[in-house]
């Protein structure tokens, strides 16, 4: 990577963030009932770009809203009139601060499904108009396993700018994309000394050593594919209460449903998150359901994350953020599920 590295101290970084917030529509980690979410902020004091824990909610809702209107319609004696519900602020530039690497990586993974064949233009515009400034994690959370997957966390281009707090107390800012490079040139001052790159490396080494969870990704993916008929899927997921929280909170789960609501002669059609863990997800008219039992739905979830999406789009669908485990009411972690199935003799 040939991008220049800039250096600043705590006060300088705060100034850098304040300037961004002052000039742009900005989102950043906001603490809300002991949980961090990316929220719109108007001053630095409202947020914490160095949130110490994995965020409960990812950036997904900023690009793929929980629900969005597709159209409104009106009926009369003349027939039906459809009014498409176009969002008008897609062209607005946005900056997201304090982004965790996993949340940024998740968008790269989602890009694949949204940009094949039919393209999701709304998603693309939101992506294009958003600059992502990531803060590199100081240490791994208890459920994190991003370094065990199929991509290079250290040299990622999932975000435009990376902020690293080095052991010497200084902050180093490095662009990871051309867009980030141009942004830094415009918005920062002091170039780092020659050893900046070393400081960043040292920090990464310490971070990478802090992971409690590790797995051999290729091996697990291959074994899962071989274990399609294994009863271990059932054993590993028997506690699941099918609440779908894992899907809604997952930064890469993207299944949705389309629903209608009608009051008298007017109505609305909207798109909302759905989950393959729901018993109704594949239930067909007439009562046939190819995944009528819980373990088969879980098998689809695990295999989609670790096998199918990779076969189709050449990236793993799970980014190893551990959000599903943090929010699961019965403490199921997809890491444990796939490893338990893969390690079954």
């Amino acid at each position, binding site marked *: 990577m040939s991008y220049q590295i800039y250096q600043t101290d705590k006060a300088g970084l705060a100034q850098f963030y304040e300037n961004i917030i002052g000039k742009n529509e900005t989102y950043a980690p906001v603490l809300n009932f002991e949980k961090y979410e990316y929220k719109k902020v108007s001053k630095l004091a409202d947020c914490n770009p160095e949130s110490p824990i994995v965020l409960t909610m990812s950036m997904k809702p900023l690009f793929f809203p929980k629900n*969005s*209107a*597709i*159209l409104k*319609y009106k*009926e009369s004696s003349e*027939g*039906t009139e*459809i009014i*498409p*519900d*176009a*969002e008008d602020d897609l062209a607005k530039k946005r900056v997201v601060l304090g982004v965790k690497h996993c949340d940024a990586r998740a968008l790269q993974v989602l890009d694949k*499904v*949204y940009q*094949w*064949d*039919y393209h*999701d*233009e*709304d*998603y693309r515009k939101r992506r294009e108009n958003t600059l992502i400034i990531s803060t590199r994690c100081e240490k791994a959370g208890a459920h994190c396993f991003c370094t065990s997957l199929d991509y290079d966390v250290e040299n990622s281009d999932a975000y435009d700018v990376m902020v690293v707090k080095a052991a010497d107390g200084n902050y180093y800012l490095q662009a990871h994309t051309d867009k980030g490079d141009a942004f830094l040139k415009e918005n920062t001052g002091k170039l780092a000394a020659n050893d900046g790159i070393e400081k960043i490396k040292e920090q990464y080494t310490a971070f990478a050593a802090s992971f409690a969870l590790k797995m051999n990704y290729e091996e697990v993916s291959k074994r899962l594919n071989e274990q*399609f*008929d294994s009863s271990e899927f059932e054993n590993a997921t028997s506690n699941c209460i099918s609440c779908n929280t894992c899907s809604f909170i997952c930064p890469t789960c*993207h*299944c*949705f*449903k*389309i*629903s*209608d*609501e*009608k009051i008298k002669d007017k*109505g609305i*059609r909207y*798109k909302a998150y*759905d989950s*393959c863990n729901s018993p109704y*997800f*594949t*239930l*067909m*008219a*007439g009562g*046939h359901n*190819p*995944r009528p039992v819980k373990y*088969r739905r879980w098998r*689809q979830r695990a*295999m*989609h994350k670790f*096998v*199918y*999406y990779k*076969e*189709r789009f050449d990236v793993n669908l799970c980014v190893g953020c551990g959000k599903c485990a943090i929010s699961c009411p019965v403490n199921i972690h997809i890491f444990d599920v796939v490893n338990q199935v893969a390690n079954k003799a």
Partner: protein
Amino acid sequence: MEQLLVPMLCRVEKVISETPDVNTFRLRIKDENQLQQFNWRPGQFVEFSLLGYGECTFCIASSPTRKGTFDCSIKKAGSVTADIHSLIEEGMDVGIRGPFGNWFPYDEMKGKNLLFIGGGIGLAPLRSLIQYCIDNRGDYKDITILYGARSSADLVYKEELKEWQANPSIKLVLTIDRPEDNWNDNVGVVPKILEEVVKPSIENTKVITCGPPIMIKYTLLSLDKLGFEPKNVITTLEMKMQCGLGKCGRCNIGHTYVCKDGPVFTYEQLKALPDEF
């Protein structure tokens, strides 16, 4: 993507009652530009909406050679289809998105004998291709249609079946599951009639089949017994779909999106999918 999810308005020109629980809806796209651009191929499907009640997936049951209008034959099976049956009248507006999915390989089938095997409402997607082949009759060799239903009342497209019966360039074999008064045709389930009455030759023949899962299961076994290679047996898959765009994830089987890679698959392709059915 929201724009891609907005349906085109269609006027319901005709509602034809086929059986006690199947109606055919003949639709015309209202906007002239949209009508001109609506070019489908036999085997493709649409998302059909009754605004306020929901959107469902149905195949287009008529051939693109008969343009202007198109047909959807809908069986009353779930909540939205029940609403469709009870609420839609001639002259009303409904929504359509599409056409979506792949199609029957009708070019590859040129110069071949075609054997259509349909059961119940499964004749709907086949009808699009049958009409297409009749309208391009010179391109195809022998055309045989084996069609069965539970009872004579459950046979769809009764008027058209008479036309096919009278057409000297097609062989139509009808069957019902149980004997009935005044029924002089075959009695017995489709796979049985296939083996005992139709007795098709595998020579230069493509089989196109669609029907209820239980019929498909035993028909595939019979075709195997008769010596048909899986690559020469084509079917259209039933799977819950919603967006039709390869996004909503509902129709995933393995890495396949049935709405994009299907719904038309050869038996050979189906065998390569994870065994979820």
